[in-house]
């Protein structure tokens, strides 16, 4: 009986052992399976992480500005309208450590325009030095200050005049010192981006704006900007700096006049360089006084250049004369080439702006900006319209003759050149006061109420007048509204204010 129990016990033990072995094997299998699954998940996670890291290198941002404008100018028709002012989409791709590609198209209703297209590369040796190549903002405080952040809807008049479209094509070195808060920028640019230089027919001679994107001339312009950031104490910070522009523009006329409408004695040939040089000084003062407050300003002065043009109009007259003695005919053909020259012009200018901004809590900000721009400091308001340059260059006649059978053919080429330029609206100085209230609904949406009050320099002229050559001087704005001619008279400060309500969505 004992043996029976022993056998049964051994049998049960074997069975249990077999079962345990089986459970152990099963667990082992499950462990292996789980391990494989975890390895699989790990692998997938690594792949996902790798894919995600590529996406992390791409940054997309942008903003849309929709607005309603009411124009207080009697020449404006319609005097109120909605518009989409800016529609920007900025894509940045960090190709490698320190290498960044940036594309920013403007996708407005007016069409597609590439605002920014550049690459920045950090120097492997000098870590604080960046090279920029492509189309980017010109180095200037108000230019580089984003339109999505600016406290008033538009940039100052002087900035719009000197740096139209803000961007330029070229290369730039940017150095940020590590020990002191100093930033230096030096750019070499084509120099003519955004400018329109009209010929006699009104066509733009600046092909930089055409699809071919060629430069207007061989001259390259240099820009520099140096800024220093200082913290005076815990609540006051002062940034200041200076900037400059050293540029040249191709002369397209053989005469050059100065801002006072007298001839520049330096002889000019077509293709010569006209200097465009100016300097500027800037500051930004920040004070934490009952919330943030800032006072920001810049003053610029220097010399600008405007190209002229030469237009030719040829008239031909033919006269026949009979010589009865020898029975010959004398045919005289006279080609008269009337050359009308708009001379190049070099003008001294000055201007600047001053912002006063005050933040009220997190969501509100009020601002006032005063800006001024005198595009020609060499003549006063009273001289505008009366100052002009008008000169005739002595006629040049060349004669050639040939005998054809019994007849004599004489050809005369007469070149008559008249050079003239009148002072006008382009010489009028402006002061503009802009008041704005910005309300941030959240970080993405901002509502702006702004009122811009431009004030023109007064001139002597009341109505459209004629110059010595009986040409109309384009001194007054004119528009025909509902069949009635309307004028703005520059002998007074006429109303040309704009009220704007803008909503900006930014992401």
């Amino acid at each position, binding site marked *: 009986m004992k043996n029976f129990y022993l056998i049964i016990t051994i049998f049960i033990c074997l069975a249990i052992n077999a079962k345990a072995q089986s459970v152990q094997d099963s667990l082992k299998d499950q462990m292996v399976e789980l391990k494989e699954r975890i390895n699989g998940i790990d692998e997938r996670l690594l792949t996902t992480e790798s894919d995600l890291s590529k996406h992390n290198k791409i940054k997309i941002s942008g903003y849309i500005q929709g607005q309603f404008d009411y124009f207080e100018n009697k020449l404006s028709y319609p005097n109120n309208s909605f518009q989409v002012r800016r529609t920007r989409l900025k894509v940045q791709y960090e190709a490698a450590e320190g290498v960044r590609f940036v594309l920013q198209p403007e996708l407005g209703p007016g069409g597609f325009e590439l605002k920014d297209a550049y690459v920045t590369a950090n120097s492997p040796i000098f870590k604080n030095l960046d090279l920029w190549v492509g189309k980017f903002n010109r180095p200037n405080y108000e230019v580089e200050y984003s339109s999505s952040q600016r406290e008033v809807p538009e940039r100052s008049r002087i900035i719009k005049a000197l740096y139209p479209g803000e961007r330029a094509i070229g290369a730039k070195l940017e150095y940020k010192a590590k020990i002191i808060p100093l930033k230096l920028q030096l750019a070499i640019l084509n120099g003519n981006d955004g400018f329109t230089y009209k010929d006699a027919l009104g066509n733009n001679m600046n092909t930089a704006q055409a699809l071919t994107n060629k430069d207007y001339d061989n001259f390259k312009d240099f820009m520099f900007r140096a800024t220093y950031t200082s913290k005076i104490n*815990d609540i006051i910070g002062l940034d200041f700096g200076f900037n400059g522009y050293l540029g040249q523009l191709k002369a397209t006329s053989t005469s050059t006049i100065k801002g006072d409408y007298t001839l520049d004695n330096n002889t000019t040939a077509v293709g010569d360089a006209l200097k465009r040089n100016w300097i500027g000084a800037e500051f*930004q003062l*920040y004070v934490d006084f009952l*919330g943030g407050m*800032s006072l920001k300003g810049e003053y610029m002065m220097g010399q600008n250049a405007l190209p002229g043009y030469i237009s030719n109009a040829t008239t031909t007259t033919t006269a026949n004369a009979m010589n009865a003695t020898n029975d010959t005919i004398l045919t005289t053909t006279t080609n008269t080439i009337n050359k009308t020259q708009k001379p190049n012009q070099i003008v001294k200018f000055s201007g600047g702006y001053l912002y006063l901004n*005050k933040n009220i809590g997190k969501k509100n900000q*009020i601002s006032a900006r005063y800006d001024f721009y005198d595009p020609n400091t060499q003549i006063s308001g009273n001289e505008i319209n009366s100052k002009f340059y008008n000169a005739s260059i002595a006629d040049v006649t060349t004669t050639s003759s040939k005998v054809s059978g019994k007849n004599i053919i004489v050809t005369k080429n007469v070149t008559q050149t008249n050079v003239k330029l009148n002072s006008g609206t382009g010489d009028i100085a402006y002061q503009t006061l802009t008041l704005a209230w910005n309300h941030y609904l959240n*970080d993405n949406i901002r509502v702006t109420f702004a009122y811009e009050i431009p004030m023109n320099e007064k001139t002597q002229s009341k109505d459209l007048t004629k110059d010595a050559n009986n040409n109309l001087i384009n001194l007054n704005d004119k528009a025909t509204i509902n069949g009635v001619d309307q004028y703005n008279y520059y002998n007074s400060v006429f109303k040309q204010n704009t009220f704007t309500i803008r909503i900006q969505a930014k992401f």
Partner: protein
Amino acid sequence: MKTLNIKKLAVVLSLLVTGIISFAFINQERITVKGSDTMVILAQKWAEVYMKKNPTASIQVTGGGSGVGISALINGSTDICNASRKMKQSEIDKLKDRYNTLGVEVPCAKDGITIYLHPGNKVKELTLKQLSDIFAGRIKNWKDLGGANADIRLYGRENSSGTYVFFKDNVVKADYAPNCQTLPGTAAVVNAVKKDVNGIGYGGAAYSTGIEICKVKKDTNSPAYEANATTIKNNQYPITRYLYMYLRNRPTGAMKAYIDWILSPEGQGLVTEMGYFPVR
């Protein structure tokens, strides 16, 4: 040219400013705090104790990393940003653009970036140069440092972390090695090293429990120090840093009361209690 009537302008602006100014000074009892993961346990403790003492106060604390906190400060979604590094100039510029202020920096604690090792690791101390070589990927095996013949496995933080930036700028002084695993939070770094005998990580001193703390020396001839209250106070520990709170403007009302309390002996006492080091 027409002269502006400056007086009228000044009157209009003054009225506008004084008329709306009261909005800026409405005491907001609810304070949001966001930023450094290194500081999150300390910030939570501060908030918890302060709210018990001031039942009307409501303080909400979240982490996310110093970079995330600074972004939140700039976009207005937090009142206080905790940061384990200083704000960069580019970040201050954004504050200037949006709020016309430089931001207010409040050093509120000190910390030593601690080097975590597995207790089974033979290596017990490292120089700054060796740490740089390890995290830049120039030293890849523990045997080069007197340890076992095994590959070094690196654990670090994400690039939004202030600790990541501080350690990179002050110790590694180069790009991190590509095989350095980035983890979301100091606690995750500690956990990873706990489980990996060949692992090494870095993070705040307050998280260094249940793990080997590596002593650090400036160079081979210097003494090795462990991060503790004495070595950090005396600036002996080579990887010492301040921890900051950043605000948009000078604090007023409830915010000022809270900041003042944090800098008071009571608030600074909690700094020590939580494993950090006081500034006062």
